[in-house]
């Protein structure tokens, strides 16, 4: 199973319209990505909650089509 980088970017931009988003395909295999997301929506949330918000934005793809996403979240 695989997913294109642009699909991830679109979903993240939908979920976090205000955010600075930087997605990287780490291995060039459409399977291992990293994402850095800086959004005001993370304000006052724990790190677990922030990552859960990102997974929600990815609409169930995480752990399925999307095998690996190294995630860094930050408040804006």
């Amino acid at each position, binding site marked *: 199973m695989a997913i294109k980088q642009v699909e991830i970017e679109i979903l993240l931009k939908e979920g976090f319209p205000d955010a600075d988003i930087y997605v990287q395909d780490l291995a060039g295999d459409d399977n291992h990505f990293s994402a850095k997301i800086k959004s005001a929506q993370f304000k006052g949330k724990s*790190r*677990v909650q922030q*990552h*859960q918000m990102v*997974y929600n934005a990815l609409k*169930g793809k*995480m*752990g*399925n089509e999307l095998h*690996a996403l*190294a*995630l*860094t979240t930050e408040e804006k």
Partner: protein
Amino acid sequence: MNAKQKIQNIIESNDVVLFMKGTPDMPQCGFSMAVANVLKMLNIKFNGVNVLEDEEIRNEIKVFSDWPTIPQVYIKGEFIGGCDIVKEMFEKKELQSLLDEKKISYKK
């Protein structure tokens, strides 16, 4: 006992639990290995639960924690996070502070 009760039971009866793919000595996935290595480096006594050996736990833990991936770490019954969070907490010494706070011994 259903899978949810099993998970509840495991996290209540062990201070530190790592739900992982493979075992602490033979991890079957790089992310599980990375977290196991952090816990080992800190000399933390933890219980590794191999989800590859129990399909029910493998599926239920994702619902239970509202977290789509494995590995997952629990400390004193509280969900701490997956690989990225545990590594980041370790690097920023937040994991060590949490262990102090929860009175769990580790190598300083």
